[in-house]
């Protein structure tokens, strides 16, 4: 991969965060309470906030015994997951609670901790901060085997209403229940199209198994994937920032919840996905995206991981001829067989306008964007749609441009972009 496709700190700051994030937006993202206030007005769900502490007097006035058995104490503007105490249950015959790290804390410990937070021990530049007590979000059962004493979260980078890259962050023994990669959590790359994990990194190095176990990190299916992506996009829209990292936890019953926003999300996500972020960001920078659903659709079409390597390993390389019968998934969810030309001279797949209309894939909800194409025939405005077809039994999800092909031999040509893992017999 070319180095220019990778996003570095210089480019992140100058090309994206400076340009697309307002100062106001950064203030919202830096403070978890502000984030909760802004997102609370939308349909995005957040963990409940039980209590805020602004002055030391609040600590004494508060009835600590009224708290539920599990909750989290957090600084509003803490950095890197520092200063957070999560308690899981009350000690039955005695004072205090047990934290997720299996330590005991008493009311006095918590009071002291809140005082520390108010003094600014965990905030940026040690400015005085506000502390709050928040609902505890436990582990979803899909992650139970993978996370060590903590709740994993999903970091999604959203740019221009399109979820661009995603990573599952798993707490480890070393990270002490926190999901921050710098503290030793594992980062697992996620295929945007399917929500299935692909690769994993730990301390910047590729790993296959969860540290200390034999559990494969590849192939985990994240439940509610589309909803998670849409939640992330909605949070980005509400925040008013163009380029944002959204951290989402999956509540076992209530579904995806936004935990916090990050105006300068880390770059390690590129290693976890083995992909360049800059390339993806530039790809969606100028698109007109209507809403969250539209943005997610674009993302799924553009950033689907090519499982070609794995397919190759499992099924062997498939050979196709120049003229093939292809099954297209229509809007009615049925497969329609049409004739296609395998065209290694084209990059993108192209479909006939009438055919697309018949199959229902030219509906407004399926159109991703329109683009001016230059070809031998001159300039032409074409619609780009998301398309799923089966070639020689292999499912390919991709994007296709729509053109008038009525005078050509086949209503569909399949370009090189979608021919990875295939051999073309030129007979």
């Amino acid at each position, binding site marked *: 991969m070319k180095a220019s496709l990778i996003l570095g700190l210089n480019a992140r700051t100058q090309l994206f965060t400076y340009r697309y994030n307002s100062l106001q937006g950064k203030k919202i993202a830096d403070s978890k309470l502000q984030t909760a206030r802004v997102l609370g007005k939308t349909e995005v769900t957040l963990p409940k906030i039980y209590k805020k502490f602004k002055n030391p007097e609040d600590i004494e006035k508060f009835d600590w015994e009224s708290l539920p058995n599990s909750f989290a104490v957090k600084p509003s503007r803490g950095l890197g997951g520092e200063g957070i105490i999560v308690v899981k249950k009350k000690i039955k015959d005695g004072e205090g609670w047990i934290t997720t790290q299996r330590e005991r804390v008493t009311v006095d410990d918590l009071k002291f901790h809140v005082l520390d937070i108010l003094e600014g021990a965990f905030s940026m530049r040690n400015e005085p901060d506000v502390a709050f007590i928040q609902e505890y979000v436990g582990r979803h059962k899909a992650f139970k085997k993978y996370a060590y004493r903590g709740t994993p979260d999903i970091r999604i980078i959203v740019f221009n209403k399109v979820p661009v890259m995603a990573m599952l962050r798993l707490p480890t023994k070393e990270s002490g229940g926190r999901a921050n990669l710098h*503290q030793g959590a594992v980062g697992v790359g996620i295929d945007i199209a399917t929500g299935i994990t692909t690769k994993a990194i730990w301390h910047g190095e590729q790993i296959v198994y969860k540290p200390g176990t034999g559990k494969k990190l590849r192939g985990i299916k994240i439940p509610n994937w589309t909803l998670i992506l849409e939640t992330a996009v909605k949070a980005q829209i509400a925040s008013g920032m163009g380029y944002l990292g959204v951290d989402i936890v999956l509540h076992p019953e209530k579904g995806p919840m936004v935990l916090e926003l990050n105006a300068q999300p880390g770059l390690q996500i590129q*290693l976890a996905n083995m992909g360049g972020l800059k390339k993806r960001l530039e790809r969606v920078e100028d698109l007109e995206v209507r809403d969250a659903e539209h943005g997610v659709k674009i993302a799924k079409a553009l950033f689907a991981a090519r499982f070609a390597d794995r397919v190759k390993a499992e099924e062997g390389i498939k050979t196709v001829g120049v003229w093939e019968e292809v099954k297209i998934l229509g809007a009615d969810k049925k497969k329609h067989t049409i004739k296609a030309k395998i065209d290694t001279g084209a990059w993108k797949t192209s479909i006939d306008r009438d055919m697309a209309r018949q199959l229902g894939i030219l509906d407004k909800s399926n159109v991703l964007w329109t683009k001016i194409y230059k070809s031998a025939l001159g300039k032409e405005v074409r619609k780009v749609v998301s398309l799923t077809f089966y070639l020689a039994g292999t499912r390919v999800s991709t994007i296709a441009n729509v053109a008038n092909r009525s005078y050509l031999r086949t209503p569909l040509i399949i370009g090189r972009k979608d021919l990875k893992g295939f051999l073309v017999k030129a007979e």
Partner: protein
Amino acid sequence: MRKIILYLLLIVAFLGFLAKPAYAVVKTSPTASPSASPTFEPTPLPTPVPDLTQKTQETLGPLEKLLEEQKLGPVWPSNPLKHAIRGAVETGVPANTIVLLLLLPLVATIIAAARHLVGLRGFGIFLPAALSVVFVATRPVVGIGLFLIIVTVSTLTRMLLRRLKIKLQYLPRMALILWIVSLSVLGVLFAAPVIRHPDLTNVSIFPILIMALLAEDFIRVQLGKSIKTAINLTTETLILALVSYFFLTLKVVQEFALLNPEWYLLGLLGFDYILGKYVGLRILEIWRFRKLIKA
């Protein structure tokens, strides 16, 4: 912001202080006793004495001599600063001070370039810059020695407090740590009769003050992040300060800045601007993403 101003004040105060030893040294110098007054032309002192503690005098003499030797054209368009420098030096402003002030933007540029082109972070821009000036004053060996002592002592104190489960609020805890840092530096100074290192006895309050403040930053990073990050940042700061020190004391650079201040300053300005516009990967990022680049 207040902190930045404080650092600036410290640096300025320190630069002023740097100039003083030149006089002080002249007074104690046995060879210069017949012409003890500092306002005299430096010509009677061109034969340098190979004594390390008299470094300032050594650099002072030749720099002013260089200025004398430089032939100046008309003031405008290309010589306004040269004339201004000449005027200031003739009225008694030490050339040393002017050189250090001229080199300060260079140090800042080096630190900025180290961050944006290489990827070394350090503690911001003022700490490495201040530390490099400290090194000029104390010599790197003593400077690093003091720095390491301060950092070790503050870290040990922090760990001890944690081990003993002494829970203190943040500011009192910082104050306590600075208390111990001050005492240990005092201890080092008390040990001067035993160590008998000439650089150590010449140490003044400003370098120590700057370093004590650096200890606070170090602990703050430790509080927020891991010890590993703190050590990395400290090492990077030291590297940056040493590189800056190297440039600050490099004769060629000093002379170029003093004799061609216009070109030198314009060049730095342009470089700073270009540096701010650079959006490519940093060298350390190329290393960090090497597998991605290979893939």
